[in-house]
C-alpha cells in the first residue's frame, strides 16, 4: 500500500525520529567542520613548516663563507632565559657580498623556534665553528641575504601534522559515512553495514567450512581439552566472581559504616551518648551484617560444593547427534540429588525509552541423568557418565543484538541444609548444513 514518505524512521540503537535529512545534515556539518579544521591545520603546516624545509634542502644554493664572529643569543622566556647560536658570516652571492647573522633556518628567519633552554647544547653548536675559518653555507637565491650554516630536517615536524591529519581522517570518514547513508532504506543500510564488516583473515575460532552468520563463536569451548573426553566445558559464569564482588561490596560498606559505628560507641563509652548518630547508624549496620552473613554463606557453599567439571565427546553439537558426557562433582557434603539436563533458552531484550526488559524462557529441557543420595568426600569426587542427545530438528544456537537462542548443559545439586546450586555450561549447536569438516576442530 502506497504511503507518504516517512520522515519518522526509527533507527536501532539511538532511537531517533524526525527528518532523517535534518539529522544527516547535522551529522554532515559536524564532520565537515572537523574536516575543514584538519585541512586548515595541514595547509598551515605545509605552508609554514614543510615548504621552507623543502626549499632549504632543494632550493638553496651552496657557497663558501667566512665565519667572522660568534655569540650566544639570549632572550627572556616564561620565567627562564632562552638561547640560540648566532654566527656572523661573510659570503658572495650573485656578484654581491653579504654579512648576515645566522645559524640555521630558524635563526636566519628570526623565528622564536630558534631558541632553546638548553644552554650547553647551544654552546656546543657554537663551538663547532671557529672564527676566521671557512665553511660551506647555503643561501636563498630569491633572497641572497638569507643564508644558513646548518641544514637538517627537524624530526618533530611530522608530529605537528598528526593532529590535523587525524581531524581530516575523522572528518572525511564521517562525511563519507554520512553521505553514503543519506536517504537509504533500512534494508540498504543493513546491507551496507554487513558488506563493510571485515572478514576475519585468521579465524582460528571456527572450524574450516562455510560461514555461519549469527551463530556464536566456538573458541571458549574448543580451546580447553578434557582429560577423559575431547572437551572440557567452561562455566557460563564463575562463582568466584560473584564471591569477589560480594566481598568487595561487604568491605566497602562495612568499612564506611564502621567509622561512624566506632564514633557512636565511643560517645556511649564516654558517658555522652550521641543518640542521633546511634539511631542513624543502626539500619546501615543491619545491612552490613546482612552482607557479611550473605558472604559467609556463599563462601561456605563454594567451599563445601567444590568444583563441577563437565566434559563432552565432541563439539559443536548437531541436531540428532548423540554425545558422551562426563560430570565430576567435588566437595564435602551430602547431596540429596545431582541432576544434569540439556537446556535450550530463548532470551529476548526489549528497550523503549527508560525501560529495558530482558525475558529468558527455557523452551526445552532434556534430561541426561539423575543420581540420588550421594555423599561427597574431599579427595574423592563423584563422577558419572551419560549420553546427551540433541533432538532432530532442534534450532541451532542463535545470537543477534536483541534476541538469542542459547543451549547449555545444566548441573543442579540439591543438598541437605543448604540451598541448591545450579551451574550452566554453554554448548553450541550448529545446523546440520553447517557441520564442521571431520577432524578439523580437534584440539
Amino acid at each position, binding site marked *: 500500500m502506497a504511503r507518504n514518505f516517512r*520522515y519518522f524512521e526509527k533507527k536501532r540503537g*539511538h532511537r531517533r525520529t*524526525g527528518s532523517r535529512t535534518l*539529522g544527516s545534515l*547535522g*551529522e554532515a556539518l559536524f564532520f565537515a567542520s572537523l574536516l575543514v579544521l584538519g585541512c586548515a591545520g595541514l595547509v598551515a603546516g605545509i605552508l609554514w613548516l614543510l615548504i621552507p624545509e623543502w626549499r632549504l634542502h632543494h632550493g638553496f644554493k651552496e657557497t663558501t663563507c667566512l665565519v667572522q664572529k660568534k655569540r650566544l643569543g639570549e632572550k627572556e622566556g616564561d620565567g627562564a632565559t632562552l638561547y640560540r647560536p648566532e654566527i656572523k658570516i661573510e659570503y658572495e652571492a650573485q656578484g654581491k657580498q653579504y654579512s648576515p647573522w645566522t645559524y640555521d633556518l630558524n635563526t636566519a628567519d628570526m623565528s622564536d623556534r630558534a631558541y632553546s633552554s638548553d644552554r650547553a647544547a647551544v654552546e656546543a653548536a657554537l663551538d663547532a665553528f671557529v672564527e676566521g675559518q671557512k665553511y660551506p653555507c647555503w643561501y636563498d637565491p630569491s633572497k641572497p641575504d638569507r643564508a644558513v650554516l646548518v641544514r637538517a630536517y627537524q624530526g618533530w615536524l611530522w608530529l605537528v601534522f598528526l593532529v590535523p591529519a587525524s581531524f581530516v581522517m575523522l572528518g572525511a570518514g564521517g562525511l563519507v559515512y554520512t553521505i553514503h547513508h543519506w536517504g537509504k532504506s533500512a534494508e540498504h543500510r543493513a546491507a551496507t553495514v554487513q558488506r563493510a564488516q571485515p572478514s576475519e583473515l585468521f579465524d582460528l575460532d571456527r572450524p574450516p567450512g562455510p560461514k555461519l552468520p549469527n551463530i556464536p563463536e566456538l573458541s571458549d569451548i574448543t580451546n580447553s581439552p578434557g582429560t577423559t573426553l575431547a572437551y572440557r566445558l567452561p562455566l557460563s559464569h564463575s562463582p568466584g566472581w560473584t564471591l569477589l564482588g560480594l566481598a568487595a561490596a561487604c568491605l566497602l560498606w562495612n568499612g564506611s559504616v564502621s567509622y561512624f559505628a566506632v564514633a557512636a560507641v565511643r560517645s556511649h563509652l564516654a558517658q555522652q551518648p550521641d543518640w542521633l548518630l546511634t539511631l542513624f547508624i543502626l539500619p546501615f549496620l543491619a545491612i552490613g551484617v546482612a552482607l557479611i552473613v550473605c558472604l559467609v554463606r556463599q563462601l561456605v557453599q563454594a567451599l563445601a560444593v567444590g568444583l563441577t567439571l563437565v566434559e563432552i565427546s565432541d563439539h559443536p553439537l548437531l541436531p540428532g547427534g548423540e554425545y558422551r558426557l562426563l560430570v565430576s562433582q567435588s566437595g564435602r557434603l551430602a547431596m540429596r540429588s545431582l541432576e544434569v539436563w540439556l537446556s535450550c533458552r530463548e532470551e529476548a531484550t526489549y528497550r*523503549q*525509552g527508560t*525501560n529495558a526488559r530482558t525475558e529468558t524462557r527455557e523452551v526445552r529441557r532434556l534430561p541426561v541423568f539423575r543420581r540420588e543420595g550421594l555423599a561427597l568426600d574431599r579427595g574423592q569426587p563423584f563422577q558419572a557418565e551419560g549420553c546427551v542427545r540433541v533432538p532432530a530438528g532442534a534450532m541451532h544456537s542463535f545470537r543477534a543484538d536483541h534476541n538469542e537462542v542459547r543451549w547449555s548443559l545444566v548441573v543442579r545439586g540439591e543438598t541437605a541444609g543448604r540451598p541448591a546450586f545450579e551451574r550452566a555450561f554453554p554448548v553450541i549447536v550448529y545446523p546440520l548444513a553447517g557441520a564442521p569438516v571431520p577432524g578439523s576442530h580437534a584440539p
Partner: protein
Amino acid sequence: MNELVEAIRNPFSAARFAPDRMEFLFAPGQSAAGLLERLRAADWRGEIVGPHGSGKSTLLATLLAAARLAGQPCLAVTLRYGQRRLPCDFLGAARCMAAQKDRVPAVPLLAVDGYEQLGRWHRFLLGRLCRRRLGLVVTSHHPVGLPALCHTAVDPALAWRVVERLQAGSPPLVDGADVAERLAAHGGNLRETLFDLYDLFARRLAM
C-alpha cells in the same frame, strides 16, 4: 495443523506495538490536531507525562506525524536509560533548524522522549536552543516544568481498544476480561500487559 499454527502470527509481538508502528488512540473528543492546537497556545512548549507503559512515546510519535503533515519540521530523539546527554548529531541538526527557522513558515519542533534523564547542562543547552526559536515537546514520568500537554493513563477500555486493533486479522483469542485482569495486575502498564497477552495468545493458539 502445525503449519496453520505457524502461519498465524502472534499479534502481540513487540515490534507491532513499538511507538512508531502504532497510532495513539485518542479518547472521544480528542485528536492529534487538538493537541497540536494546545501546544501552539502554549507557545510550542509542552510535556507529556505519564507512568511506564501508558503510551507517552506512542502519543509523541503520533503528535509529530500530525505536525509534519501540517508542514512543521520536526526532530526527535529517544533517550535510553541512564543517557544524560543529547547525541551530537541531534544537537547539530537542532542548531541547523534554529538557523533556518526564518526560512520556514511553521515553527520547527524538537521532541525529547525521556527528558527527565537529561543532565542539567544538556537541559540548559536545549533550553537555550529553543528560546524564541524552536518549539519543544518532551515526555517524562513526572512533571519537568513545561506546560502540561497531556497526562497519559491507560484504563481497561482504552487497553481493550488497543488489543482489538492489534488482534484485527488474527483469531480473537484474547477478550476484554483477559485484558482488564492483566492490566490491573500490572498497575496500568499497558506494555507489560501486552507482553503477557503475547504468552496468553500463544498458549491458546497451541490448544
